[in-house]
């Protein structure tokens, strides 16, 4: 699905990722954990194609295509999805309109006809119920005056509607209360299947109690320093980042 090899990335001449490598296969869930400033969000932005990052070296292949050569919208339409840590507020754009536009953009890319309004409404209703989202939220402007929890739910709603092949969750658990964390995690788990993959970026092991990863990686100073299974997350919780990075 995704193969990142020796990726080196800088911003304003400051090197952030210093030879990052990771392979994610179909159906796998990987967790990436690390302290502040270790390069987690940079990785997610680079993979999604945000333009202020400079790729100095390395490669990223997504579904046998060179990911780094694609435009941002092309990456998304090829099946890459980034659930943002801080979703953008867009005044004047109704949430449901945005969702429908995104779905139809992907369908157009795949040479499919536009989704029928009724069909879209039906699907949207189902997903909003699953995520315990107030339907009134869909009539409001995208993320404007949403609470932190509502914004994150909105991201997961987009994820479940767009059904990507690879979803990167960038600290989706930050700002969520316990109930919202459970609901959001259940939403992610419902989207999981043998054909898609997830990269879950988080500071805390707590999220991984709900979204069980197949692999856990620790990132420090721009590269993976340790990989293991779920037990690594538990160990990390006990010992802390500093000790684990030294070990």
């Amino acid at each position: 699905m995704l193969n990142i090899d020796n990726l080196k990335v800088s911003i304003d001449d400051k090197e952030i990722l210093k030879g990052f490598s990771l392979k994610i296969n179909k159906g796998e869930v990987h967790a990436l954990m690390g302290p502040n400033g270790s390069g987690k969000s940079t990785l997610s932005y680079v993979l999604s194609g945000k333009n202020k990052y400079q790729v100095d070296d390395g490669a990223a292949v997504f579904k046998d295509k060179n990911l780094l050569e694609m435009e941002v919208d092309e990456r998304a339409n090829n099946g890459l999805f980034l659930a943002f840590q801080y979703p953008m507020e867009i005044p004047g754009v109704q949430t449901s309109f945005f969702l429908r536009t995104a779905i139809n953009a992907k369908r157009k890319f795949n040479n499919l006809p536009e989704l029928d309004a009724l069909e879209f409404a039906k699907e949207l209703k189902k997903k909003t119920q699953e995520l315990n989202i107030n339907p009134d939220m869909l009539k409001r402007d995208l993320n404007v005056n949403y609470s932190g929890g509502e914004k994150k739910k909105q991201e997961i709603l987009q994820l479940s509607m767009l059904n990507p092949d690879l979803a990167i969750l960038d600290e989706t658990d930050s700002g969520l209360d316990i109930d919202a964390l459970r609901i959001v995690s259940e939403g992610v788990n419902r989207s999981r299947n043998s054909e898609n993959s997830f990269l879950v970026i988080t500071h805390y092991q707590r999220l991984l109690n709900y979204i069980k990863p197949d692999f856990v990686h620790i990132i420090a100073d721009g590269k993976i320093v340790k990989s293991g299974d779920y037990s690594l997350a538990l160990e990390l919780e006990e010992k802390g980042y500093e000790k684990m990075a030294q070990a």
Partner: protein
Amino acid sequence: MDVEKYIENIKNNTLNQYFQNNLLAVNPFQNHKIENYKYAQLNKIDYDITHKNILNFDLNIQDNFYDTFQKNKFTAEVSQDHINWNFNAPDSAIRLASLIKDPTVHSFDLNNFENEICVIDLSLYQELNYIFDYNNEKKISLVIIDSNRDKNKSPRYLKFNLHQNSNIEILQITYNKESSLAFYEFNQSNSSSVNMTVLQANNIQLRNEFYFNLASHCSTKISGANFCNLGVNDNYSFIQHKEPNSSSREVFKSIVERGAITNFQGKIYVDKIAQKTDGYQMSRSLLLDNISKSNNKPELEIYADDVKCSHGSTISKIDEDHLYYFNSRGISSDLATKILKKAFIQEVLDSIEDVSLNKISDKIVSSFL
């Protein structure tokens, strides 16, 4: 120079000569502050029309006012038309030019109009100067259309006298015009309210002026959107709070591209007796390229000491983070830009209360954005 003398001097000139020889050359009203019309003075407008690519577009909305108007109109004296603007209010060159070209003012009592929505297609009307009276608590909704179907290029002067407690909503649309000069004046009696939405699209040269004179407990809302225009587009507003306890809200948005220039200059004036005034003005421009220009000049002139007035102005390009967010969901930059343009003026469209007026505004917005 004295205005009366000034008018006398140019009475025999054609309108064009009037502009060319006088207003374009100098500021004719020497007694006014130079700050008035800083950006929007007529001599800054380039009347050489070099762009001719007006789209072939028609709103196809039928006028339903003409017959009633012709049957019930009466002639008013120009002298009755002057209201006591504060001496700091600049007189409008457009208003004067309109009166010079045709000193007759046609008056009509809107209470005589029975439909709830009154559609005025200016292209059908030969008259230049109008006074509309309205005296009814029941809201009347007006649509005023100024398009290239109107071959009369002279300025238009429309004045509304709103009596106590009366309530009016106006959607004014200017589109496809090579040159549009219009002056709107609202004289509001106690507790009257105006909600005016202005949409300007696909014009080349445009200058609209909006004057509001508020007595006590009045409410005034003006929301404007200028998009897909070429050349120079000027909007000038003067909201005068003459008595206490009135509120005014003004939002003006411009989307500027293809080398166009938009000027917005708006003033909230608060008289010294107009305590408890609540005024707000916001002008925003969205610049879509490096060759277009926007001049926004918000102004407050306050002589009362117990008021709430605020103003703000921004000029920006499309937010790159917004574009990135759209792109990250598979939406192309072209489509995202189109959506964000409409989102930019959505606040103006949301200010329309009447459902029928909303449908009309949707029609013009979806045709151009």
